[in-house]
């Protein structure tokens, strides 16, 4: 029997971590999973608090389940389990689930005075979006998370990372000295600091401090290659002129690409990166409130910038941040 009514009555199957759960029509993914003991954390159950977020690996949760999420989260398959009433089978994952991929160090070279360009070749395919980050773990267990600086189309020779050299640090001196071929494990990629076509006609504001400019330069190039139509401003904040290690490249990119503006701000010249960001926002004029913003770098600055942009009228749902938390020494 394959009549439509018979199909509708069949419970929808949802798999999570190798286990299959059955959903009766109208039941939410959250209720079905938790009634069967999956223990998905939840709070408001009305689609507002976002505690119960899951990721769709296959299948669709239905439109109500992505209401209120940020566009990159939607693209990455995230949905609210309490609002998900799928009509067809799904495979889902909890956001924390991560399987490492074996990888080797491919090459390193200095990029300016204090940044190391590191290429890592995964030994299995790794899907990522320009602007995401990945965690590198050495065999001895020391692990650090870095943003990916290149685009998927450029990644045949591996993922590129811009690593701030920290004398006395546990990872960066090791990377600088390690031989090509050294074994690593790669976790992720993860993070929602990536371009989505839904932003096509909106102003884009990319603000990075230090090596936070690396993922944003990739996001910028991804946006340009995707045919982004709105104005774009990329702002790099650094301690001094030496810290503006992508200055030449970004200057050239801005000159060659209509609609793209590059600004820099250094503490040495008493320039505040937040002021530069706000001037960029003002230059967007009437469309400033529709700006999609990406902010990467030191946590204190990232949080200050996010708050400033929000107070200036940018929706929090359109502000994507990646604070570079420093692990305890």
């Amino acid at each position, binding site marked *: 029997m394959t009549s439509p009514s018979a199909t509708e009555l069949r419970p929808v199957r949802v798999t999570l971590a190798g286990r299959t759960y059955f959903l009766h029509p109208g039941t939410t993914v959250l209720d079905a999973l938790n009634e069967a003991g999956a223990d998905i954390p939840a*709070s*408001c*159950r*009305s*689609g*507002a*608090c*976002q505690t119960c977020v899951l990721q769709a690996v296959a299948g669709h949760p239905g439109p109500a389940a992505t*209401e*209120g999420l940020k566009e990159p989260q939607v693209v990455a398959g995230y949905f609210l389990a309490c609002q998900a009433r799928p009509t067809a089978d799904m495979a889902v994952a909890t956001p924390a689930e991560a399987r490492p991929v074996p990888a080797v160090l491919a090459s390193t070279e200095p990029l300016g005075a204090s940044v190391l360009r590191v290429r890592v070749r995964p030994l299995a395919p790794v899907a990522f979006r320009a602007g995401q980050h990945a965690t590198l773990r050495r065999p001895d267990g020391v692990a650090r998370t870095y943003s990916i600086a290149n685009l998927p189309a450029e990644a045949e020779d591996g993922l590129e990372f811009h690593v701030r050299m920290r004398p006395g640090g546990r990872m960066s001196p090791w990377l600088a000295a390690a031989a090509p071929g050294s074994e690593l494990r790669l976790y992720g990629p993860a993070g929602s600091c990536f371009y989505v076509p839904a932003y096509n006609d909106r102003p884009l504001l990319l603000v990075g401090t230090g090596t936070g400019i690396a993922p944003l330069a990739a996001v910028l190039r991804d946006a340009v290659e995707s045919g982004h139509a709105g104005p774009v401003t990329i702002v790099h904040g650094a301690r001094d002129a030496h810290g503006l290690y992508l200055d030449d490249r970004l200057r050239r990119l801005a000159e060659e690409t209509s609609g793209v503006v590059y600004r820099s701000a250094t503490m040495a010249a008493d320039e505040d990166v937040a002021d530069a960001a706000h001037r960029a926002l003002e230059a967007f004029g009437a469309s400033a409130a529709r700006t999609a913003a990406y902010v990467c770098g030191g946590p204190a600055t990232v*949080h200050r910038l*996010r*708050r400033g942009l*929000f*107070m200036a009228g940018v*929706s*929090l*749902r359109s502000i994507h941040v990646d604070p570079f938390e420093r692990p305890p020494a």
Partner: protein
Amino acid sequence: MSENSLYERLGGAPAVLAAAELFYRKVLGDPALTNYFDDVDMDAQVAKQAAFLTMVLGGPNAYSGKDLRSAHAGLPGIADAHFDAVIGHLESTLTDLGVDKESTGEVLTIAESVRGEVLNR
């Protein structure tokens, strides 16, 4: 949830998310309140504001407000004046959204009912 709840009339979930940002911006912009939000995760906070607004607007909700007590416990010097200020920002948000006086009064009455939870009484 009644079909004519203010939540539905304002436009449901998308409208409430926009209202939550408006509300949160007013609260953050208030010098008497802003320091309390220095270390909070802004995305999580605006989601909580949306859950709170969903409740007071009569939306579909299982939000009991019971975590309001734990969320506000231990905030230094938190008092009636702070709660009054937040209620004022809620009223101003509703005014901005064009909500009539009578409905606003009903919402503020519901909001008022959590004063004891927030101030840990």
